[in-house]
């Protein structure tokens, strides 16, 4: 059979290789290295804080937070889950993973919220941002691991950079959406009273978009968690590494415990951040919806049972 490749062959792989190796790396390596500095700094602070914090203090603290935001059930779950994680010997790894995720989410918020606001205020910006977000969300994360390694090396920080790229789109999208969906008559009213753009943003748009932005933050957090194992491929530590090495050595036990740690952490963080947005009554879909619905079904049961004797 004749195929187009018999006549013309496109050496795309060579092109990309030479672009990254001969152009990006030699010319921009220092710039890329410099980009790591703030991440390294933030990570170091968060990481050393969580490793310094005694397990019991952390557990009690997070349980209380869960109680205040998401209610009794989630608080109880948090308490049990954290004790369980400690008992299966993964406390340190969990703290490492948590620091990594919080650092990623921190940078996603710092980059994503302003970018979302900007795209909401200018159609032209959105026109540029939207296709980039589409590409970011369609490229499988494995694909950009290699250029990241070439540009940033291996280790925790490159892992976080990969996580940021992967988890950034929802917070931008939902910030943009939240602000654009603020009722037009409220914008008009704010304008009619002589608000400046900043006052409009601060007094009206952000407060009214807060729920949607929180939903975006929740999705970003969940995406960051789902990158934990992949980030371990390029040298990030924590629970991801436990799973990864477990798989590599066919140590099913280690891989499973690592996996359970990730799931438990994910449920706790999801429930808490979800309830922050939900406080004012908004439901958002997330990766862990099925898990959550399982969990809330259990809670409803418990409620029914405790209701009977009363």
């Amino acid at each position: 059979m004749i195929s187009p490749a018999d006549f013309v062959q496109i050496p795309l792989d060579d092109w990309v290789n030479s672009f990254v190796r001969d152009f990006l790396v030699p010319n921009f390596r220092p710039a890329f290295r410099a980009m790591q500095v703030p991440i390294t700094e933030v990570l170091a602070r968060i990481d050393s804080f969580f490793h310094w914090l005694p397990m019991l203090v952390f557990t009690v603290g997070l349980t209380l937070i869960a109680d205040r935001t998401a209610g009794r059930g989630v608080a109880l779950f948090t308490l049990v889950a954290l004790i369980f994680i400690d008992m299966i010997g993964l406390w340190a790894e969990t703290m490492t993973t948590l620091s990594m995720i919080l650092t990623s989410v921190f940078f996603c918020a710092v980059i994503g919220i302003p970018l979302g606001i900007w795209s909401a205020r200018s159609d032209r910006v959105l026109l540029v941002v939207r296709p980039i977000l589409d590409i970011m969300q369609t490229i499988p994360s494995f694909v950009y691991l290699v250029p990241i390694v070439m540009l940033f090396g291996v280790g925790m920080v490159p892992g976080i950079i990969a996580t940021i790229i992967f988890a950034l789109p929802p917070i931008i999208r939902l910030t943009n959406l939240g602000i654009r969906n603020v009722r037009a008559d409220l914008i008009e009213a704010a304008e009619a009273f002589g608000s400046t753009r900043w006052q409009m943003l601060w007094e009206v748009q952000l407060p009214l978009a807060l729920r949607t932005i929180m939903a975006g933050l929740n999705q970003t957090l969940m995406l960051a968690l789902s990158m934990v194992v992949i980030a371990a491929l390029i040298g990030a530590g924590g629970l991801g590494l436990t799973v990864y090495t477990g798989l590599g050595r066919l140590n099913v036990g280690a891989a499973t415990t690592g996996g359970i740690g990730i799931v438990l952490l994910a449920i706790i963080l999801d429930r808490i951040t979800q309830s922050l947005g939900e406080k004012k009554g908004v439901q958002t879909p997330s990766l862990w919806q099925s898990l959550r619905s399982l969990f809330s079904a259990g809670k409803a049961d418990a409620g029914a049972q405790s209701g009977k004797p009363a």
Partner: protein
Amino acid sequence: MKPKIRVEGVYKIFGEDPKGALDALKSGKSKIEIFEETGQTVGVQDVSFEVGEGEIFVVMGLSGSGKSTLVRTFNGLIPPTSGKILIDDDDVASCSAERLRKIRREKITMVFQHFALFPHKTVAENVAYGLKIKGEGAASRRKKALAALEQVGLAAYADSLPGELSGGMQQRVGLARGLATDPQVLLMDEPFGALDPLIRREMQDELLHLQKILKKTIIFITHDLNEALLLGDKIAIMKDGRFVQVGTAQEIVDNPADDYVAAFVADIDRGRVFEASHVVADPVTVEQHEKGAAEKALQLMEEHNRNALYVVDDQKVAGLVTYQELAVAAREEGRTDLAEVMVTDVPVVDQDTPLNELYGAASAGHPIAVTDKRGRLTGVIEVEAVFSQLSGDASEDEYEDEDEATEDGSTPPAEEKATDTAQGGTPR
């Protein structure tokens, strides 16, 4: 006096090519033709008018006639395609963004059809919004917000959220928010449009009451002609983006500019539009204690073709004598004392009484006395004048008194009639 707002040749065209549509419009094409040919929507065309300080100017028109578009050009929410909008000396259409913001903060506020209250702020915070934007301190903001809420009777709800209030209450908050910065001009875009009729009536009265105290310059948008007639010192009727008629309620009802306006006013309650002052005639009176008053009264009635006459005592209404009774008394008894035949229980109204409140007074069949605040007789309303005004016959028409005089003269005075029926009623 210099007008507070002066609007000159304002056009607003929505679409990509407003200038082209503007030229087409000026060359005489209609709104529909322009839309079909160019796809541009004419929002407002060639609107000019003036509003004096403290006046309520009402713009009335059907849905899509361009009212909202027009009113939004006054505070720059929609920039006009061409034309001038002068508020005092500032042209809102061409001033800088900075200047426009200052005008919005200090001079002109807006009340919206669907209230547009900020759902995340309390009622007091909503009301204080304009003050916050201006940079006032929290304490004085709160104080002024409470004062504004007091004016609309909602001080007790200061710390509720708007969502907890009924529609009528929410619009009171909207009004308080508009008033809190003490603006000179208030724009109201169908502010009562979303309220049910009863609440609506209440709010209209409240607005009129507030306006008596506050004396703002108000541009009020409505699609309800009754509301327009009730509130407007001046009313503009808008159709397809242009003013088809501007005038007082009475002018519009009495002399509709074209069939479109005529169709509107056809089933209007004229009794609410016109007031006693529109049908009043100069009084013909006699002094009660004058010498020969009775003869003079008879003579005056003959001269002026009246069948009743008011008797005054030092300019105050003393009573009324009818020709018939006076003539009978004079002929048969030769008496000339007016007091003997005078009816003292006479209908008395003031200048501003709407005609529909005169029905009761008119039913007695006597002319109605119009007095000023101190009770002095300033005019007399003939019953026929009331009904001819209500029925819409040109008010200039002089009614023929001759026939009616005899007819009326032969009927017993209403007071007697009333007593008769009352007496007739008791035995049953």
